[in-house]
């Protein structure tokens, strides 16, 4: 028979610090709403840190389809099946997965109501529902219009629809994309997409061109993208900024027409990246403010509107940190450790977080933007002097190297998230 003492001795030999030993015994109930990069990471990390915690992940889809690398699906560089991840690893970590959606949160009673009729109580709630579209913010664009003019900004059927439309297009057809004002999911995403569509057109539709209508005058990693376009696809991508009439004021799905402040453009294939807000459940729970996004404090990412609720990933306002899968995963690990500390009655430590977004301009041409963030004056703030974009002058095969690192990052982050 083994006594407590021999176990503790074993733990000491294994190098377990007392802090871990106390985290190990922390108990309580945590519910996580949404099993994307933020939620799946949070649920697994909570169980890893404090195995006695009762952790339930609420997620209606049995298969998660990843947006990162979905632009490569459009360019036929990947299959959509390579974007798909299941929750087996999350379940293996000891998390209970409720395959349904959350329909209501009562922040006072600390309960979550589920679409299947069940009600869960919690000590701490993590909300990571990602984004929803602001249907109605762009006249003419609604869920029906998205069948004609796909957004492909939630990966899956929409990604395949846009890819199929591109493949069916006549050579010489005009692809028109529209990009929204800030903030939105994945700041470099529209420009990576334009690049990879141009990459694919160069091979399969060499007479086609792409028009990118933008509600902004500047965008993430702009110089690297524009230098790359001039080098790889001269004349194929026309970017129209806000000040030159880039803001789309309405769309017509029947004729695939975009109307801007300056005129109108008829597309052979139309991709509308619509204005966005936090997933609808955030509004219901009272954690979203008038911007549609969720304000949080910068240490444990607890809502400043509803105590006991932590908001992570795209849904949250994270100061300088962009809405990315990298950020969502990093925030979730910090938040899980903070929740374990809070449940144990300990003050969470001030975090440091990193974000890096890789973008592909071609199969073998990658660039990146990075940042390091810490809490400052109530917000996550860029650490001065750190971060920035890839070198403007690429020496020694740098772009090819970063394309390889991007692929390795994707394999790593999906394993870190889903197990």
């Amino acid at each position, binding site marked *: 028979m083994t006594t407590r003492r021999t176990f503790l001795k074993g733990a000491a030999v294994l190098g377990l610090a007392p802090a871990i030993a106390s985290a190990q015994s922390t108990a309580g109930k945590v519910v996580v709403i949404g099993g994307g990069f933020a939620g799946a990471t949070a649920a697994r990390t909570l169980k890893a840190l404090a195995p006695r915690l009762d952790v339930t992940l609420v997620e209606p889809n049995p298969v998660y389809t990843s947006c990162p690398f979905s632009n490569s699906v459009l360019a036929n560089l990947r299959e959509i099946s390579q974007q798909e991840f299941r929750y087996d690893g999350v379940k293996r970590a000891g998390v209970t997965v409720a395959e349904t959606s959350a329909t209501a949160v009562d922040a006072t009673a600390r309960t979550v109501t589920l679409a299947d009729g069940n009600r869960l109580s919690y000590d701490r709630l993590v909300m990571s529902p990602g984004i929803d579209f602001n249907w109605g913010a762009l006249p003419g664009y609604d869920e029906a219009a998205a069948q004609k003019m796909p957004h492909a900004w939630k990966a899956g059927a929409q990604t395949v629809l846009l890819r199929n439309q591109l493949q069916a297009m006549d050579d010489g057809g005009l692809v028109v994309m529209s990009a929204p004002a800030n903030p939105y999911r994945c700041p470099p995403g529209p420009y990576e997409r334009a690049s990879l569509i141009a990459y694919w057109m160069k091979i399969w539709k060499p007479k086609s061109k792409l028009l990118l209508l933008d509600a902004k005058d500047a965008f993430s990693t702009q110089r690297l993208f524009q230098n790359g376009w001039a080098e790889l696809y001269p004349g194929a991508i026309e970017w129209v900024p806000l000040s030159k009439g880039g803001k789309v004021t309405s769309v017509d799905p029947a004729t695939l027409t975009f109307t801007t402040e300056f005129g109108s453009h008829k597309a052979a294939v139309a991709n509308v990246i619509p204005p966005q807000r936090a997933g609808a459940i955030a509004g219901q729970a009272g954690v979203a403010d008038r911007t549609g996004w969720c304000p949080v404090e910068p240490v444990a990412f607890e809502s400043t509107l509803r105590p006991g609720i932590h908001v992570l990933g795209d849904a949250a306002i994270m100061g300088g940190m962009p809405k990315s899968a990298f950020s969502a995963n990093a925030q979730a690990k910090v938040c899980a450790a903070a929740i374990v500390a809070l449940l144990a009655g300990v003050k969470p430590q001030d975090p440091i977080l990193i974000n890096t977004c890789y973008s592909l301009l071609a199969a073998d041409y990658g660039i990146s933007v990075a940042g390091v963030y810490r809490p400052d004056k109530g917000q996550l703030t860029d650490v001065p002097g750190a*971060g920035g974009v890839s070198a403007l002058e690429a020496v020694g095969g740098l772009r090819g190297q970063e394309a390889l690192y991007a692929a390795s990052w994707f394999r790593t982050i999906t394993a870190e998230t889903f197990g």
Partner: protein
Amino acid sequence: MGRVLLPVLASALLLAGPAQAADAPPGASSCTGCHATTKIADSVIPRIAGRKAADIVTFMREYRSGAWPSSVMGRIAKGFDDQQTNAIAAWFAAQPE
């Protein structure tokens, strides 16, 4: 008795499991977005779990100063001072290789 034993047992098993972020110093749980603590097949990003702390510190210093060329590490290393870097290096050194 068993209720006391269980968590300790679980922690022993966990050492081979996913990254232990509770104990992790600030920043370390972001490094693992690229430098996995589990084995990732087919990754060209070098593994740093289980490496000597002194080596990790040297790399980080040289990246920070720009003495060693890098695609991304220079931009990241500049976000961490010596003390923060030492703590992160010690943590990675203690992770299974």
